[in-house]
């Protein structure tokens, strides 16, 4: 059976019953705390330190070549628990120099009134195209303003380094004529 610890209580001593010792201890505690450095963060003048891997507003990122990484596979749209993401897939023109990527989103909306910042979209994305970055405070005057469209998402996202460069590799392979799809 469980190892228990019974919390006994002792009756108050005569001094304690007068409440005087409590006043003294209370004042002492308060005074000591007054002299300690303040822990209050004067937001918004002071900003909190945002740790790495923080889950802020979801954004879309581009690869170092300036290509949009999202291939509009719609996996994030599927997984998003509150259904905040809307994607309209689009084709890439045959003569574009990113034609080897095949697809890109035509429209990509994230409704920040619905988003719960859960990070599942980032987690499932097979292209590392969507990231929750460090913006944590969003506001707007209307509901429409709170829907981040594709352009806004790329503005927020910027460019992140690409560790795998799989599309570069694919292009190189295609140029060599040894493309295997």
């Amino acid at each position, binding site marked *: 059976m469980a190892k*228990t*610890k019974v919390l006994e209580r002792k009756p108050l001593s005569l001094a304690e019953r007068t409440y005087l010792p409590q006043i003294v201890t*209370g004042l002492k505690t308060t005074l000591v705390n007054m002299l300690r450095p303040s822990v209050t963060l004067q937001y918004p003048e002071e900003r909190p330190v945002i740790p790495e891997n923080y889950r802020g507003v979801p954004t879309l990122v581009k690869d170092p070549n300036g290509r949009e990484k999202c291939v509009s596979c719609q996996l994030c749209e599927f997984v998003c*628990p509150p259904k905040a993401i809307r994607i309209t897939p689009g084709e890439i023109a045959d003569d574009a120099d990113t034609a080897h990527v095949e697809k890109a989103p035509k429209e990509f909306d994230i409704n920040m009134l619905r988003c719960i910042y859960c990070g599942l979209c980032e987690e499932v994305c097979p292209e590392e195209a969507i990231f929750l970055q460090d913006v944590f405070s969003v506001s707007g005057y209307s509901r429409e303003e709170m829907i981040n469209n594709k352009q806004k998402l790329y503005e927020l996202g910027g460019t992140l380094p690409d560790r795998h460069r799989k599309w570069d590799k694919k292009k190189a392979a295609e140029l060599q004529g040894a493309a295997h799809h």
Partner: protein
Amino acid sequence: MSQIKEITIGDVAKRSADGEEFSGETMALNIGPSHPTTHGVLRLMMELDGDVIKSARPVVGYLHRGDEKIAENMTYNQFVPYTDRLDYLAPLANNVAYAIAVEKLAQLEVPERCQAIRVLCCELARISSHLLGVGVYGMDAGAWTVFMYTFTQREKLYTLFEELTGARFTTSYTRIGGVARDIPDGWLGRVSDFCDQVLPVLDEVDKLLTRNRIFMDRTEGVGTISKEKALAYGMTGPNLRASGVDLDLRKDRPYSGYERYDFDVPIGTRGDCYDRYLIRGEEIRQSVRIVRQVIDQFPDGAYYAEDAKKIFAPQKAKILTSMEELIQNFMIVTEGPRMPEGEVYFEAENPKGALGFFIVSKGGGVPYRLKIRGPSFCNLSILDDLLPGHYLTDVTVILGSLDFVMGECDR
């Protein structure tokens, strides 16, 4: 209109002194659903005779979001963010309880490192929940300062959670078969620094409250729940232990490797509001003990079940470079983690009591039915028995001592 008779204060005083006209007359009083003492959206319908409560009925459901129904429409992993919002004062503990329940259905064992991370999560969540519980309780009883000190500590914990999970509040940290990510570098050290500095603060709280005559006068002998009553109403957690029952699921039915750690289960002697305060203070200390042990024997290895290929999604680097893993990722996301048919019930010792998940599965990645047992709901059910006979001013103290959270009560 001609009937109007002027009544002077003297008349009223005389009549109430005679005590005839008003005796036996009761007053209906509603507290909540939006009232600072109800810690959320609990509504109390009370009948008062003067200052004494004759009957009380808790009305719940103002925060009902249909979580159980929502669960039937999504995969097991997609439901994790919703578990944050049950007991939103200890989201990490809910995440863990849910993940373990589903893993029990899949008969999946997670590696030791993952278990240790989860124990850490649970205990830190318990510390944070109890810190708030004690602080707010002090505030309810008129000791505002205590709240400031404990809340500062809780902020520090939240900074640690933020580093670990990416969010301060809605952590969504576990996945079926593991956790979302491994612990960051140096994080364990920061947790142990936190433990070092939280104990002096607890002593400070002790100094302010434990032997404080005003606090004791307001809590001792108030809201006494007997052992039998507590059991009969299905109370769990610190509220049950305050009544002297040594039920603690971490000891009685250990999960996630709790049997490896040494800790005591504090129990109370009288089951009154004061006992419930003492228990929470002591539980924080015991949790600190567990956290230290976990850090001391922190195992190496993987933070997720590597062999559960149909349950835990492959690593990102693999998904990006290998076709097989890419397909596997798509399957797990769209169809959900592969589960066998069956029924399972699992209860975890959460800060507020036993949080249970009952899952019925027809196979596949989506639960057929998911029932949640919220400890706060059961703990509150005793109110209509407990409150009558107390003064109206005691309501604040009793509610504070029960330390409930409506997110989990209403679900």
